[in-house]
């Protein structure tokens, strides 16, 4: 018993002050929101050729990057001879509309994602059932970590629960395999209305590295309506928390 108390003393209070306090430190080499510095000077399309998931398109020299597909691998940064693509440290990536994940020159540095319905109904309590549908366990792990004492998303009334019957919504990871489709549909049907669906990670938004595989169906929105998209491969826990909090109308300092 004394050892338990001693360990408790040694381990200290670790829950971060954010969002009322400072942002938790992000790694120096963190790849956050992509930024397009300007039009493609010579239409060389090296970035398009390099991107493994066709996240980049060029129209009239205007470069556009789809964060819903992007794996944040940064191969396009190296490929562009003009340095037009970079990844900022900005962790705020989420969007409520799919097309708002497409970033081009002059795009806003963050997207408004407040859902008034979600705020009014779930603002003080959001219970989520997590469904991994072909996820590699990275998105799952970085969602799960939000329940640990350092992040403690229970502070905001957000919690993962064991049954869809107890849930207000689903947090889906993975490209949705053909083999998980029925299970996902049934889980969704088991969540009482009103309900929300969150697609977490490139796979759940678009299929990620598994885009257009016959064994998958290119993400959650092929099966269920998605209310919040959280990009990344996997998204940093801070990106996920930021998405959930702003979606529910919590005050987040810039």
């Amino acid at each position, binding site marked *: 018993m004394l*050892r*338990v108390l*001693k*360990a*408790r003393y*040694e*381990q200290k209070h*670790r829950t971060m002050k954010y969002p009322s306090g400072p942002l938790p430190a992000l*790694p*120096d*080499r*963190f790849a956050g929101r992509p930024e397009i510095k300007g039009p493609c000077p010579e239409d060389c399309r090296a970035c398009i050729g*390099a*991107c*493994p*998931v066709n996240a980049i398109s060029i129209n009239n020299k205007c470069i556009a990057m789809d964060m819903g597909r992007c794996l*944040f*691998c*940064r*191969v396009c940064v190296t490929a562009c001879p003009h340095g037009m693509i970079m990844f900022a440290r900005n962790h705020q990536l989420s969007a409520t509309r799919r097309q708002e994940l497409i970033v081009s020159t002059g795009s806003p540095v963050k997207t408004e994602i407040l859902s008034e319905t979600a705020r009014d109904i779930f603002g003080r309590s959001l219970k989520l*059932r*997590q*469904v*991994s549908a*072909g*996820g*590699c*366990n*990275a998105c*799952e*792990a*970085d*969602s*799960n*970590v939000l329940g*640990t*004492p*350092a992040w403690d998303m229970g502070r905001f009334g957000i919690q*993962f629960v*064991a049954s869809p019957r107890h849930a207000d919504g689903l947090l889906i990871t993975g*490209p949705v*395999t*053909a*083999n*998980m489709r*029925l*299970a996902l549909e049934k*889980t969704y049907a088991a969540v009482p209305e009103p309900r929300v669906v969150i697609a977490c990670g490139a*796979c759940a938004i678009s299929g*990620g*590295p*598994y885009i257009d*595989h*016959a*064994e*998958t169906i290119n993400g959650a929105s092929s099966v269920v309506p998605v209310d919040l998209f959280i990009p990344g*491969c*996997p998204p*940093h*826990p801070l990106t996920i928390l930021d998405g959930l909090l702003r979606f529910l109308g919590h005050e987040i300092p810039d």
Partner: protein
Amino acid sequence: MSFVSIPFIYNGDSIPMDAVPVVGDAAFHQTIAELVESGGHLSAMLAAPKDDNFLILAVISAPKQEQIGLIATEVAKEYTSLTPECPAAQGFEREIFEQWGLKPQGHPWLKPVRFQPSRRTGKALPIGDADFFSMAGEDMHEVAVGPVHAGVIEPGHFRFQCHGETVYHLEISLGYQHRGVERSLVGGPDKRTIHYMETLAGDSTIGHMTAYCSAVESLCGLHPSPTAQNIRAIAAELERLANHIGDLGALAGDVGFLPTLNYCGRIRGDALNLTAMICGNRFGRGLLIPGGVLFQMDAKLRRQMRDRINILEADLDSAIPLMFDTPSVQARFEGTGALSADIACRIGLTGVAARACGLDHDVRSHFPYGAYRFDNIPISIYETGDCLARAYVRWLEVKQSIEFIRRQLDLPDSGAGSHPKINSLAPNRLAVTLSEGWRGQICHVAATDAQGKFAFYKVVDPSFHNWFGLAYALRGQQISDFPLCNKSFNLSYCGYDL
């Protein structure tokens, strides 16, 4: 001695495809049985089309020789099953049957492995539509769980045959995570290949990328610099550290010992953040590339990491022994889900689960690669084969990994950690690479065609061997001990389903 002379290669070597002897059914059978009998591990077995027939290739890692043996046989429709003599082959033979329809005569039960589309016809069985083991009688009951589980965890289906609280048999039926990785690798490597490798089993990104990079390097004659090997090994041990710490915490949680659960949940994140210090991503995405690594570790970064490792170690010394010294935890761990060394050996168990049964299997020691060739990590072993052993081996390995990372951090970054340009792969060659992922042995088998593209690429995640071990460990246990036993193995669904 076997009567067929077969080639043995070192881990990470490649040989011409036609140097692999193609023998008759009986010789194939006998050679593998003898190698396994003398301590070899059936690391991979696969089928690949060859003219009108198929080649079945077996890869046996032999710790005594510290080399990997290769043998093949040509099959039209059926062959003699190895499973009755060598149970470690059961999953591979079912997989080959599911993919190519080749029938192993004498296999006890060819049930589906992952309900994947046939590589011949493109048709798949509906998921879960299969015969399951069943028991009948008074007071017998069946408990079915999944594919969607109660926690934040991947999907899989479990069926328990119970009499009262006692589990007589657990059947594990997977495939829900099947994404068609191996099929998509054929014709590569291309720009998506490394992303398949990084997400095969997302918590083993470094383990699988190490095996993949080594296979490609072997096929195009590249030699990563010592600095690149140094950074890869640091990342690999950080991956082991993070996952073992998370597992130790979760094991504490499964027996209701909340202090260690909560501390480890946070400390695991600290370990993941160390990987992010190197490459910006907590899972090591984008760090490895064939030929080397994409990020450097200068003296300043090494110093910072050493400081944070010291803090992490102190936090662990306060959090983990607390659990092992608590009688109520010991009482739940001891004797739960025990496997004997003999069973572990026969079913081809690998990694932590095998070492917890007293088997000295560790790729880093027996088939050393990269930085492990110069800095050997002692094998951590415990002998009781139960949940306590699987927990304790993790704790021993955490301590070894910390020491190893410290030693590797002390090496200077010579600045040659960058990567040379990839040449085209040598045609008609076969490369076999092993790496020790945090769950156990990862085996990649890559073969090139006449154009130097992948003719086939086989991935064997340690979970492929170990799921059967979990099923076996549950026999005679209380069903309420399933979460604890499951966590003590903590296997990958996506690594198995591919």
